[in-house]
């Protein structure tokens, strides 16, 4: 029996031009879903069915996207949760973070909470073995952690996951957009906000005293190959203390005397 995989897709925004497009992380989630053997992939979007950028996802080879129609001010969490609890897919995927709105990355967590399923953050691959999903979670500096979870589950896909395929014009044109009217509550908190361009934060400059190109390469790779330490199976207080101390040494926060 084919396993139902739903990918939550949102409308992204190109960081330079601001033009609407498929959201990068969501597109990677679709790519990952299309690669799961034996999966029946469905796309779900909460928002405006007439948004042309939705077709970018159809161009990746999914036949249809279900749009839960709601206004721009509405909160997608309740709408998505309601839809998913009635369709009951085994796997729900989403990008780790949207490219507009709050950008908090919390929607998948809230949906998982509503569906009462585990949430696996930041996976870069997934395959099904019986009723279980075997996943690789992407960690910083190219490390991977293998995880296994029973389905149903919600998982998020980061921008470090494999690049999405090209959106094909012909497929995008032919795919269908199925609209369902959704009953969405307005996101009261958000209406009060104003959006503005982000302020560029100054980057910390790493001074490298390297005589040759080879030295520079070595300096970079040595840095990447792990300063810092991995703490495993430590009590939470100790872990929190380690993070706190690190932030203090980096000068990001100041320890109270």
């Amino acid at each position, binding site marked *: 029996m084919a396993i139902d995989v739903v990918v939550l897709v949102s409308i992204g925004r*190109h960081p*330079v031009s601001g033009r609407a497009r498929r959201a990068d992380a969501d597109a990677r989630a679709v790519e990952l879903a299309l690669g799961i053997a034996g999966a029946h992939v469905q796309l779900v979007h909460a928002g405006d069915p007439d948004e042309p950028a939705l077709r970018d996802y159809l161009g*990746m080879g999914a036949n249809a996207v279900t749009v839960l129609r709601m206004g721009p001010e509405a909160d997608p969490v309740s709408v998505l949760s309601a839809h998913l609890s009635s369709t009951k897919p085994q796997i729900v995927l989403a990008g780790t973070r949207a490219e507009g709105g709050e950008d908090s990355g919390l929607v998948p967590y809230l949906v998982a909470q509503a569906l009462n399923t585990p949430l696996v953050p930041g996976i870069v691959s997934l395959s099904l073995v019986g009723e279980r999903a075997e996943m690789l979670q992407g960690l910083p500096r190219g490390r991977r952690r293998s995880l296994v979870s029973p389905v149903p589950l919600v998982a998020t896909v980061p921008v470090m996951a494999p690049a999405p*395929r*090209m*959106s*094909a*014009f*012909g*497929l995008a044109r032919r795919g269908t957009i199925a609209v369902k009217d959704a009953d969405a509550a307005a996101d009261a908190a958000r209406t009060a906000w104003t959006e503005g361009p982000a302020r560029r934060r100054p980057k910390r400059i790493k001074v490298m005293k390297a005589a040759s190109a080879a030295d520079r390469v070595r300096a970079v790779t040595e840095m990447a190959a792990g300063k810092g330490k991995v703490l495993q199976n430590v009590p939470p207080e100790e872990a929190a203390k380690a993070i706190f101390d690190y932030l203090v040494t980096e000068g990001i926060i100041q320890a109270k005397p």
Partner: protein
Amino acid sequence: MILLQGLIGICVAVGAACALWRARRWFRGRPAKVDFLRGLLRFPQSYFVDLHHIVARDPYTARMHVMVAGGFTAAFLLTLAVHLFDIDSRGLAWLLLAFLVLMGAGAAFVALRRRPKPARLSAGGFSRLPWSLFAFAAAFFLATLPKAGLVAPFAAFSVPGIVVLVLAAWGCAEMVAFLPLGPMKHSFAGAMHLICHPRFQRLGAARPDSGLKPLDLELPKLGVEAPSDFKWNQLLGFDACVQCGRCEVVCPAFAAELPLNPKKLIQDLARAVDPGASDAAYAGSPYPGRPVGQAHGGPSRPIIGDDAMIHPDTLWSCTTCRACVQECPMMIEHVDAIVDLRRFQALEKGAVPGKAPLVLAELRATDTQCGAALASRLDWAADLSLPLISAKGECDVLLWLGEGAFDLRNQRTLRALVRLMRHAKIDFAVLGEEELDTGDLARRLGDEATFQDLAKRNAATLAKYRFRRIVTADPHVFHSLRNEYPAFGARHEVMHHTMLLDELVSQGALPKGKSSAGKTTYHDPCYLGRYNGEIRAPRAVLDAIGVERVEMERSGMRSMCCGGGGGAPVTDIAGKKRIPDVRMEQARETGAAVVAVACPNCAVMLEGVVGPRPEVVDVAELLLQAVEAA
């Protein structure tokens, strides 16, 4: 000799039937508008002038072909007269003998050329061909001797009579009865191809007919998936391939051992039309690194696929350099076929490899290949205060900057060009933020939708302003604006910067200076030379500044690609070598200290070659240096 008469008669009838049988497979393609009468009337000129020009680049083959083809055609017609219709004339018989001797001598050249067989030629039926030619010539030579009064007539069942019959049967089988199916197929399909050529306007054209034709984006299926999606005269063109391997020899991808051989590509396309097709009978060089005999296809089976007739890596190895088109004596349009196939992959499957999907997505989102803000196209020129046409409204030269404006290396070229124009007091302006990518790269990658979108928007911008001509330092931009934008309503005079510089130098608009560059060799960009026929202007500029100019073995219209065209750098198919390394090696062989370039892609590709090598300098940079030294 009633037996001989019967044999000839039967062979002619079988030949006609085979021709019809063969032609049937072309009509598995889509309909195409063909002016048959016009093609037929122009045929002598197409064959004896246009085609001969190409064949004559290889004088040995040209002589060989004139002897065999001329000898055979005349001999065949005379054979019909003398032997089939039994016209009793010594004169005709002597004439026939003469043409048969010519043909036989030609056959000797055919045999000699294959000894030892050069890699570019095919074995299989072609190995047999010289002997079949001999058989034909010998049979009718013997049979004609009595008619010329040289020997006494011999009986059919005498030794000479039987020898004549056996040889004639062999010769006529190859050269008449089964001509449309064997190695001689090229004569029949080739003639039909010249008459019904899909780019008929290329015949006799003053400059190359190289612009791609717009694709109707409303069609239910975009691009070519299966052989039946090609136009019928394209299928006819593939069938005309004579497997001479000239395309193979010049293909930069083949030279760098990427998995592409244009000759096999055309053969695979020709074979794919048959139900249950396979490449097992192909007897030429393979795609480098890929075995022969494992590809399968059929008239409505997908052509591209891991075990289909053509592997995707083969399709994406092509740099669209047109060297194969330039060399092909059968005037086959390889690049059109490749782009048709790419269009399906890009538009219907989204199956474009490497970094190409990313670049295409950036093009759609930002109208630049690198995903930069349009306003930043002028960042490099902050100190030059380039005039904007939006402020001026009109100018003489509209300078099109292109993607090169985002690249450090090419900003140096643009800087030199701007300074030269200022020296010459040219009234120029740039579009600034209004300049979008031309879409050239998207088009070569098969993404016609993105190309057309960009082309229409650029055309609308250009229509707003008044200027005399567009000048660009990028031959890819030059080609698409000049040859492909007119289909979208943008008809402007477009010049490559070397053409403008040549004009300025010859008008004396620039101070006369002498270059201090050492020995210099000029590398022709494909999109300036082969695509547009402009090989003179850049050389004239170099000569005007007294550069000691040497030519590489391959130059001008027969130059070799740097590997930067057709999106090859972004699809990035691996080969044993890299194309720019192969080209740089050819430059090294000239002993030149400088490779002069005239294209941002060439500059980047050739500068990327590691190890000691000649310096890579744009023609504009060389000229500026000379002018400033004056």
